[in-house]
């Protein structure tokens, strides 16, 4: 069982090193016949690499999807903000307690149209990760989000949230300042909005910390993102008292994009570039942009009241159950 996504990327790395060496050798080669042969070999290796990547990425297990969703090479919120949107102005305060660096938000433009962006930002190195608290928002992060949601509502701007968090911050301080209340209040605030809301799960959709900002009219999910009621390790720790059974829990929880689509939890899965979003940020951003624009144009004709009602109805019918009639129970 893989411990990191790098394990299945290793053969790609090795093939690419071989390709590079051969390409250099081919350039130096003066004999046209030998050069032709080397170039042919390069083509063959590239073919092998692509076949491997294609096969590997089409057959990721749920646990591998978890590892990939957490990969530090995946595009993060700010990578999208710089490419999908323009003129982003970050607003940092919650006006209550402090500035949460895991939650990022503010107005920006999408194809010339003003929108409010809210979402979690991860870090790529230790320093960034510490600064961003591993993308785990404290109560002040959710309270900042509420503030920005309500501002968007006042100024008639659509809201776009980009979700990427392992969980809400579970620390003692967060508990003391009401992390649970902040999450619930954020969901409640989103239900009150009379402007369109589109959420995109771009990496890790970690339970309450994720859904707190994903109460949208349209919920989109990148192909290799995950969305889960609990981290698989936590589930394994509780159910089987063994956090190392994460892979089993990942398989059971139905946390992949295809599973979330099947359950009707997300409205659309956005296909990632060949071999994953980390291979091509620009293409991933283009897909995300198209997804958001399409969702917004579908919601466009609705009146403010209809938008609110649509969001209510979307979540009201969430989850399937059986219901025996009164007569049948007797």
């Amino acid at each position: 069982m893989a411990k990191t996504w790098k394990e299945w990327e290793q053969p790609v790395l090795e093939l690419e090193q071989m390709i590079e060496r051969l390409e250099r050798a081919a350039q130096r080669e003066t004999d046209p016949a030998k050069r032709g042969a080397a170039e042919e070999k390069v083509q063959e290796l590239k073919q092998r690499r692509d076949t491997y990547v294609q096969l590997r990425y089409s057959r990721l297990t749920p646990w591998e999807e978890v590892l990939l969703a957490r990969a530090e090479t995946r595009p993060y919120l700010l990578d999208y903000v710089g490419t999908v949107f323009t003129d982003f102005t970050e607003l940092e305060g919650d006006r209550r307690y402090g500035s949460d660096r895991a939650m990022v938000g503010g107005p920006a433009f999408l194809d010339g149209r003003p929108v409010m962006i809210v979402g979690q930002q991860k870090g790529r190195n230790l320093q960034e990760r510490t600064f961003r608290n591993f993308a785990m928002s404290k109560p002040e992060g959710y309270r900042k989000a509420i503030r920005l949601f309500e501002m968007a509502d006042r100024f008639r701007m659509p809201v776009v949230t980009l979700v990427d968090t392992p969980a809400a911050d579970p620390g003692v301080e967060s508990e003391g300042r009401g992390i649970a209340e902040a999450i619930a209040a954020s969901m409640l605030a989103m239900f009150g909005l009379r402007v369109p809301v589109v959420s995109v799960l771009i990496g890790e959709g970690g339970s309450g910390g994720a859904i707190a900002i994903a109460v949208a009219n349209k919920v989109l999910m990148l192909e290799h993102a995950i969305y889960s009621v609990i981290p698989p390790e936590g589930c394994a720790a509780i159910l089987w008292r063994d956090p190392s059974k994460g892979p089993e829990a990942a398989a059971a929880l139905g946390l992949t994009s295809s599973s979330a689509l099947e359950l009707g939890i997300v409205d659309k899965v956005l296909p990632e570039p060949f071999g994953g979003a980390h291979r091509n940020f620009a293409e991933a951003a283009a897909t995300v942009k198209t997804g958001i624009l399409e969702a917004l144009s579908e919601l466009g004709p609705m009146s403010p009241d209809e938008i609110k009602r649509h969001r209510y109805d979307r979540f009201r019918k969430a989850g399937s159950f059986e219901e025996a009639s009164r007569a049948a129970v007797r």
Partner: protein
Amino acid sequence: MPSGEADAGRFVQCTSCRKTLFSADFEHELRVCRFCGHHHRLSARDRIACTFDEGSFEETDAGLRTVDVLKFPDYMPKHEQAVTKTGMNDSVMIGRAKLDGMPVSAGVAEFGFMGGSMGVVAGEKVTRCLERGAEEGMPVIMVCASGGARMQEGLSSLVQMAKTTVAVERCREAGVPFIAVMTDPTMAGVLASYASVADVILAEPKAMIGFAGARVSKQAQVVKAPSDFQTAEWVNKSGMVDRIVERRDMRGTLIALVRALGAHLRTGKALVGA
């Protein structure tokens, strides 16, 4: 003790101070230890009996049944066991009840049913309980006891957090008061959804109330927790719970609140939800 057989059922031991209590006294005192005041957990049925007017609770929506969409390992056997043990179809029982003659929409969680966990059925019942209050102009009382969202229903459980929260919005629009009673334990997905946005939050003494469960916290390497961390008293001090109410005073407190906050519903025209 001579002849334990003959005494079986006559005595119980307090789980907190370990003192021995007469079963009859213990039940009469609502399962609160007369020595140390420890509030032992109550079943949903016992809670209903000591909270609402005698015989006033009429259960509704008892025909809802879970669908094991994910085919989660061991879920259905555990669920069946819980049904047999509690006589309930899931971890929440809802219905119409009265408090000193005043009609309320009531919901009570059963911790004995898979740790009171909230899956689709529990979420649906909480939602209906809140919606009924909004539609019929009745104050809503929810007594919570839950470890959180039910993992075995995966994402479907997660979205119940949003579904139950939006139902609170319906109550607010209808001007219907919603009172949450947090009992031991009220955790995670239940705390981080409808329960925390109630108009009034009451808690029983020493009830465990928190977002991250102890085992998950350990996973996240949470350190330096104070000794009363995640107790009702600690969250009360944090400003997240309005009052700590002893069990014997709970019914009286609820009556006083429903009388005050729900007065406009009884005197004026009943408000109807959107």
